[in-house]
């Protein structure tokens, strides 16, 4: 048994090494308590729904979410809007479909099976409309930045006046947590910017937290299922390991007594 523990030390050492590699060279990020962290972590439904509201009212005018469909909004483990609500949300967007029998593209209200409406026709248009900076797609953003949700949360709240001596180009803002501290996105959130349907007070921190939670779900829609299955799988493995351990002791006792 001792030897096995040594193997695990090696594994622990390796994973700590990886953490350090990822964590090096960064400013301390803002922390908040995420409900989806930990062995039994789950999304906060209400927060996801508010987060969708922030996304659609604030972010969606520049940032696409091309891998999400309206049906996802009512799927299990997500914001869990009712089917009717999700249909109504979808129908509030006009998307381009076609070609029809005459070979023409046409507009129609979106259906559950449609992907989220894109703010720009293509990347070039997105760049042109944003002073050359391409607003990244947000579908997997929470996994595509080291620091993950903490980083996104921090950037959303990290706008401040540049320190003396730092001059910024036009259309560039100072952000404490952004790599290189220069960001081309103007401060997106301010107190009371959206009016939450559920009556929650829309403070800057609240909105940042909600929309970041929403982004985490968007990037990892099966997170809850994964946590749930993981608990079962590991519990199962531990039970089987114990059974096999005693079976092994029994079997080996045959020869150990012989010698």
């Amino acid at each position, binding site marked *: 048994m001792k030897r096995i523990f040594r*193997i695990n030390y090696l594994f622990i050492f390796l*994973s700590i*090494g990886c953490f350090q590699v990822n964590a090096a060279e960064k400013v301390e990020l803002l922390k908040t308590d995420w409900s989806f962290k930990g*062995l039994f972590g789950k999304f906060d439904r209400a927060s996801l729904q508010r987060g969708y509201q922030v996304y659609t009212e604030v972010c969606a005018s520049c940032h696409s979410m091309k891998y999400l469909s309206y049906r996802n909004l009512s799927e299990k483990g997500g914001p869990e809007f009712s089917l009717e609500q999700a249909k109504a949300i979808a129908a509030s967007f006009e998307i381009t479909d076609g070609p029809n029998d005459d070979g023409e593209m046409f507009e129609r209200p979106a259906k559950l099976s449609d992907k989220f409406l894109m703010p720009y026709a293509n990347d070039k248009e997105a760049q042109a409309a944003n002073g050359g900076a391409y607003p990244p797609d947000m579908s997997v953003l929470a996994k595509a930045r080291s620091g993950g949700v903490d980083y996104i949360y921090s950037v959303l709240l990290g706008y401040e006046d540049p320190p003396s001596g730092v001059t910024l180009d036009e259309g560039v803002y100072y952000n404490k947590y952004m790599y290189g501290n220069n960001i081309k996105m103007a401060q997106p959130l301010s107190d009371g910017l959206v009016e939450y349907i559920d009556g929650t007070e829309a403070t800057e921190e609240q909105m940042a937290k909600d929309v970041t939670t929403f982004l985490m779900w968007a990037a990892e829609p099966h997170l809850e299922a994964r946590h749930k299955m993981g608990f079962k799988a590991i519990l199962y*493995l531990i039970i089987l390991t114990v059974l096999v351990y005693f079976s092994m002791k029994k*079997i080996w006792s045959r020869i150990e007594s012989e010698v």
Partner: protein
Amino acid sequence: MSDHEYVPKSKFGKWFNDRLPLLSLASHLTDYPTPKNLNYWWTFGGILTFCLITQIVTGLTLAMHYIAHADLAFESVEHIMRDVNYGWLIRYIHSNGASMFFLAVYIHIFRSLFYGSYKSPREIIWIIGIIIYLLMMAAAFMGYVLPWGQMSFWGATVITNLFSAIPFVGEGIVNWLWGGYSVDNPTLTRFFTLHYLIPFLILGLVVLHIWALHVPGNNNPVGIDIKKPSKDTVPFHPYIVIKDGFALLMFMIVFAFFVFYSPNILGHADNYIEANPMVTPAHIVPEWYLLPFYAILRSVPDKLLGVIAMLSAIFILAALPWLDTSKIRSAVFRPLYKQFYWIIVADVLILGYVGAMPAEGLYLLVARVATAYYFIHFLIILPVLGYKEKTIPVPLSITEPVLGGFPNPSTVKKKESIN
């Protein structure tokens, strides 16, 4: 192969076995006499077989949904993660499985280094193992390209550019590898093809690896030749099977933690950004299991020499059975080698660490010292040690150390041929 001729009991069994001796093979595998003192470091052979099969099965199922096209690869991976039934599970097992595979293979290799398993008469087993390791690196590298994220793209660019170091024909070779003037769709499709092929080559080599193992039989912690079958051995089934099974389950618990609770910790965030040939990520890092070699590559200031150093670091291992001149296998009886062994372990870990750091300042200096030591260990220390080292007397049979817990020089008989 077997020490006794197996005769099936049933008439049909005998008829079948005379034509295709599968039952003889099964009997050989179950009765295969194994040293009874194998410790848990020996269970990684079985664990590696599990890893290979897991990678093949999950890989096959992923290939049913993955699209090897520069415009669709990233999207198809997202499709797997979002829409395919259990797609997220299968992909996370596959991507973390690569890391677990390398974790196990490194333990397997370092076990061999500690107990001298590569020495006569097991040189062929060792060399086949090195080839498997090389193929694993190729498969892992090409597999990492398939999601077509930023790290995929730039990793592929950097690694294929290594070939441009070859004088005169380098550029031609790189264009041939790419099928164009940059890493692009033709590169992706051929990498997918080869990524699909290599695991089956590995599977074939694993059969040879085990076949070659079953000729002399397992080495053991004491490192002496044993009579088979004898009091020193146990039949493979059930003794080794259950022990391997137990160790495998422990390994699977670690595996499951990664898959279910931190599936992206071993990967790099940049690979969730779709490949963009116009922008290189700030800091290109290969997967952790390739870092030591990456550090060796970067520690040499010359392009061609750097590539040569990196490749030598791997190929030097194939010559190990002849570089190590000591007649004693196990480090248990080699007090000096044992210390150098832990130094080379630390050296490789240090190389891995600096491989992940920017190649500048102190990191570069450390990388250079560690690289130099790596080669000194294999080319100078090991050959000299075989002649100079005063070893501890080796027991004649493994029954005694098993009884005594650990070999006690005063109770074991001296073997004359040793130094």
